[in-house]
């Protein structure tokens, strides 16, 4: 418990962490609030009031049928939260299973799984979604499964080496010698050591899911019509961009803020949970921070860490 509290304090010490936590709280609060209250009923339309600008009556204005945009954005958070939670769970399940298969099994299986994950990681999430949509029809389930499976490969790729590292560590050897059983080993050593990496990955999966939901709903293969969704709102208003640019502005802005918030949260979590990065920040050694930053940048498509430049010091000296 105190470890979690410490990590949280560490997280809130960073600007990115504060913004990330704020966005997540706001997102969940909006979704919860919209279940009991929205400024206007979602199904309320009024042609006489179409394309209103922002006003006290309609905070963000109305669309072509006079629906209140703020109410729809608020309710759209429900879809976003639902998809993010679902995608994160599936990504965690797929990722941890593959990572376990790639580390805790006999050597032949282990290596086959690792190669498989390396290959599968190249498969873009959007193509997985299209593949599923062609078979079972577009729905939010497709979005959840596609992001979950697609990002699950990334989770596996990043988590597997962590498990291997713990497996080969001296403290595990010592614990085994002291007679700690399999369950004890997982609870005492594996979870605390691999957990942080996993948490970071999952927050990145959530940020990918927000973009994926928006994109797929826009293409017509995500949220079904009538479901409040930011992507659908974007596609519903985009045709009117020439005359009503403001109405197009809001959903895009909301999607961007949610995605950015979750990405920042992932970055801040990485720094807050990794004691090595924490120390390096204090000493401000850029090399230590660099690999983390590189992996963030990959967040959008995959979490593949930036390619390592092996033993560059040696060659560097020769060149210099």
């Amino acid at each position, binding site marked *: 418990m105190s470890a979690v509290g410490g990590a949280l304090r560490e997280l809130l010490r960073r600007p990115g962490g504060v913004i990330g936590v704020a966005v997540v709280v706001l997102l969940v609060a909006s979704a919860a609030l919209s279940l009991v209250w929205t400024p206007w009923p979602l199904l309320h339309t009024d042609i006489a009031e179409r394309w209103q600008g922002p006003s006290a009556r309609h905070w963000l204005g109305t669309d072509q049928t006079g629906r209140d945009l703020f109410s729809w954005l608020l309710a759209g958070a429900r879809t976003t939260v639902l998809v993010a939670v679902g995608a994160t769970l599936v990504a965690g399940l797929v990722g941890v299973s593959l990572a376990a298969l790639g580390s805790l099994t006999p050597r032949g299986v282990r290596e086959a799984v690792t190669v498989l994950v390396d290959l599968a990681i190249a498969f873009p999430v959007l193509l997985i979604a299209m593949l599923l949509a062609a078979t079972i029809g577009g729905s939010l389930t497709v979005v959840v499964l596609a992001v979950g499976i697609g990002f699950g490969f990334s989770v596996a790729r990043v988590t597997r080496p962590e498990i291997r590292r713990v497996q080969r560590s001296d403290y595990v050897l010592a614990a085994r010698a002291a007679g700690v059983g399999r369950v004890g080993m997982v609870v005492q050593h594996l979870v605390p050591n691999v957990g942080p990496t996993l948490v970071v990955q999952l927050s990145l999966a959530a940020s990918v899911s927000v973009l994926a939901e928006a994109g797929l709903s826009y293409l017509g293969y995500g949220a079904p019509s009538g479901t409040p969704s930011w992507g659908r709102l974007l596609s519903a208003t985009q045709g009117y961009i020439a005359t009503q640019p403001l109405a197009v502005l809001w959903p895009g802005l909301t999607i961007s803020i949610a995605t950015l918030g979750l990405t920042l949260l992932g970055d801040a979590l990485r720094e807050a949970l990794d004691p090595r990065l924490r120390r390096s920040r204090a000493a401000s050694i850029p090399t230590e921070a*660099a690999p983390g930053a590189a992996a963030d940048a990959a967040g959008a498509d995959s979490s593949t860490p930036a390619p390592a430049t092996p033993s560059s010091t040696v060659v560097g000296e020769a060149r210099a």
Partner: protein
Amino acid sequence: MLRFLIGRLGLLVAGLLLASVLVFLVLRVLPGDVAQVIGGTNATPAQIAAIRESLGLDAGPVSQYLSWLAGLVRFDLGDSLITGTPVGEELGQKFQVTLPLTLLALVVGLVIALPLGVLSAVRAERGGGAINVAAQALAAVPALWAGLLLILLLGRGVGLVPLLPTQGFPRDGWADPSAALAALVLPALTIGVIEGAVLLRFVRSATLEALAQDYVRTAAAKGLTRTRALLTHGLPNVGLSIISVTALTVAGLITGAVLVESLFNLPGVGRMLVSDVGNRDLVKVQSEILFLTAIVLVIGAVVDVVHRVLDPRLREAGA
């Protein structure tokens, strides 16, 4: 080197086979009766039987897969279930839009990412951080929305500076290269700006890493400015990691193309895929997805080989 090439080629073939098996399993085996899926709920038994026959569904799944594979090897991607036209031909035609679009987007991305990424690392204390923050924010922007904003800014008939067409592609394709190119500028900017933001952060961290290396410090100590030391000694290393990272953006470029082609109404592979998924033209969908995946895998392999050739450390290690 030869061993490496053979190994990498083997991995590529394994990847393609894996992708083809997955695509086939999801599209042809999972749905149960594929003929029913394609025919839809209103199809008559006779129509279903016709579909079944045209797909060769009476044969077992393994022999169906093998006959698809045999076709692929001969570049025969089968015929559309709806129009009956050869899929390969249409794919080739649409690729004439998607390939230039993604290449242009990559150029835009690199033009943004390389100078700004290096700058944000070199000037880490003076404004470099701001570039990094801006890039992170930009990377979170949905491509569709970026496209809409660009239309608002530069779109003909809509934008503040109405310069560029926002819809469609010349009917006669590349017959009029300047018109075709003009149609691609806004879509390519849309994808390129966002991918550029993603790339920028890789360039930045690679540069930061190079700056901290002993050889850059030594060169600086010998009298070069830090920037000069970085340019002459650090950049070769930065360049290598950027080549690898560029491979990673291929997936992003393809995803961007699927979305942006729909937004800008471009007749490319992405929009073809989206509409075929809607039509449940499974023969086309399976070839299109495999085609796009093959691009990602092949570029990944090529980049690995190039990396190997250029990096003396890896060359020696593998010799």
